[in-house]
């Protein structure tokens, strides 16, 4: 048995360290360490209610709009603030731009460059993968970055800027969209579709959305003959066995994403081993038995409705600033794969039925979701009525409690707020990577990444095992959100 500490990780937002026990060329045990505490929840106490819209998004420069949406919904839920249809559509569009930009940034800039690593230099596909996906030098980044900047022009119109927009409010969006601006949004989305259909998929979005099995996906990728970056991934994944790497067998959770009067685009729920169920939101707790916090008197798990456990850096039985969220006492995985499993898309369901939740399934679900959301964005732009209101000005109550549940690109994000006298008396946040990178709980059960890393192969002499890199990145972690 040997011990290996991997970290800090590049191409990951924030600070992360992974401690591995290695035996017989594989990871025997893993501890995931979030080494940075920031204290946003403590900062928010005592602030005027609406100031949460300024502070909370500054947790993160990547999932900023997700934080805005969660904060706005939590505040709206303290009272009864109506959301005009246009407001819902505009906020969905703002949120969708961030989420698909995050998915693509993860795919092109964070995940794919690992195939260019020197450890793969002997593989027949390495030269091609490196030319396309090497960090900074690869051709893919040069194609993707201008497309990303053009997509972000939607946010210039809809939200003034990104990140840290204040356009997202409890009653909708401050930014009414004129008929001329709708035409511009449509043109920007048409340009985005062209990038996806030419560069990422080399096929129509509708054809990608219709892929329903792993066999169909592999056949589709082989027909593309290495045209399109998604097909390149599928072929590289097959060559490197990513469908056998980073496996978990956990509950998948989604809070539901992109609400509308007809229901959310992706529904709320839980999915495990082929069976969907209702999400018991009131059974979410945070355990601090292995984190640097103290819950008097007995470290009992707390509901996010309660005051957060105070930090205690002196605990020597702890190893992370990340708390351990649990759903009805159990570990849950979150992210694009979980969202699409709950939503019932046949492709991720087939991938997971065959191989479990793996590195491959997480990446496929993420890229598939880009196609699904891009098509929905086109529908939302068409549904906006420029003559109708975008925001409702019903004031918040001075006292109340509310929860704001949404889906960031990398999974389920919840804000829980209490107000008294117009000020915040408690603010609790559980971020997606808090779920996925959670430490052990009181029962000793490891978090999703800790479970996914068990059995990962470690080659002779590897200081940064490439399998560990693939598995860690497959969750698209956002560490600054994890310990906010």
């Amino acid at each position, binding site marked *: 048995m040997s011990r290996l500490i991997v970290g800090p990780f590049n191409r990951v937002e924030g600070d992360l360290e992974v401690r591995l026990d290695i035996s017989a060329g594989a990871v025997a045990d893993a501890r995931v360490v979030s080494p940075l505490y920031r204290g946003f929840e403590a900062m928010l106490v005592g602030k*005027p209610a609406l100031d949460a819209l300024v502070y909370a998004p500054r947790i993160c420069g990547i999932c900023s709009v997700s934080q805005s949406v969660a904060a706005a919904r939590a505040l709206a839920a303290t009272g009864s603030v109506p959301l005009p249809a246009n407001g819902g559509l505009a906020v969905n569009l703002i949120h969708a731009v961030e989420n698909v930009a995050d998915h693509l940034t993860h795919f092109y800039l964070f995940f794919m460059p690992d195939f260019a690593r020197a450890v793969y230099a002997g593989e027949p596909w390495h030269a091609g993968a490196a030319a396309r996906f090497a960090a900074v030098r690869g051709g893919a980044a040069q194609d993707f970055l201008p497309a990303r900047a053009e997509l972000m022009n939607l946010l*210039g119109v809809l*939200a003034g*800027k990104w990140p840290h927009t204040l356009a997202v409010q409890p009653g909708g969006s401050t*930014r009414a969209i004129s008929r001329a601006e709708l035409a511009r949004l449509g043109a920007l989305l048409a340009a985005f579709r062209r990038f996806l259909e030419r560069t990422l998929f080399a096929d129509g979005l509708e054809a990608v959305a219709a892929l329903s099995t792993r066999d169909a996906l592999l056949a589709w990728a082989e027909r593309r003959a290495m045209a399109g970056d998604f097909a390149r991934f599928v072929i590289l994944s097959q060559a490197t066995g990513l469908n056998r790497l980073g496996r978990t067998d956990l509950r998948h959770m989604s809070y539901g994403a992109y609400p509308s009067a007809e229901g959310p685009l992706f529904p709320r729920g839980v999915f495990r081993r082929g069976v969907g169920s209702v999400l018991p939101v009131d059974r979410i707790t945070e355990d601090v038995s292995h984190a640097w916090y103290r819950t008097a008197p007995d470290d009992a798990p707390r509901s996010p409705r309660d005051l957060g456990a105070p930090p205690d850096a002196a605990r020597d039985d702890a190893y992370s600033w990340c708390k351990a969220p649990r759903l009805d006492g159990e570990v849950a995985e979150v992210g694009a794969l979980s969202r699409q499993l709950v939503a019932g898309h046949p492709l991720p369901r087939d991938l997971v039925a065959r191989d479990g939740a793996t590195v491959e399934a997480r990446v496929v679900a993420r890229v598939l979701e880009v196609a699904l959301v891009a098509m929905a964005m086109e529908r939302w732009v068409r549904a906006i009525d420029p003559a109708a209101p975008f925001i409702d*000005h019903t004031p918040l109550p001075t006292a109340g409690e509310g929860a704001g549940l949404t889906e960031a690109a990398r999974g389920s994000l919840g804000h829980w707020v209490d107000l008294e006298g117009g000020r915040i008396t408690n603010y609790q946040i559980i971020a997606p990577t808090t779920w996925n990178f959670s430490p052990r709980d009181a029962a000793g059960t490891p978090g999703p990444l800790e479970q996914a890393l068990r059995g990962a192969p470690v080659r002779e002499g590897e200081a940064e095992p490439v399998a560990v890199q693939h598995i860690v990145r497959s969750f698209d972690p956002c560490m600054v959100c994890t310990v906010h």
Partner: protein
Amino acid sequence: MTGADLDEWERPLAYTAHLVHHGCARNEFYEFKASAEQPGDLGCMMENLGCKGTQARADCNIRPWNGGGSCLDGNYACINCTAPGFEEPGHAFAVTPKVAGIPIGLPTDMPKAWFVALASLSKAATPKRLRDNAARPAPVLLPHDKRKDSA
């Protein structure tokens, strides 16, 4: 970049030689003190909604975000996020603190007596178009060429 390119906080002068107010598309509303009342209204956000664009030093409305967009274009107030200490303004971000109806934070380099005098004068002179549009999310009166009225 040398010391001569930086301001007293060592921020690049390329950004901080300007005020957020420079290039603000709501300037006509500012000139006549035609004010927004609710988030999303078209009018100037200084009087009621906490906007610090006339004090904040940044080029946000000259060099728009990603080529198009700014906080003011997004219909929400400037919170002076380029300034040290902006995070603890001592008041709710989206509400202008006032004494006797006059905003505490006046435009940069503007003497208070002149601000009060000019504000009351310009309020009295506010064109109907601006007065009617300021507290709405979309204009109800547009600029109009009277030469076409007789046709």
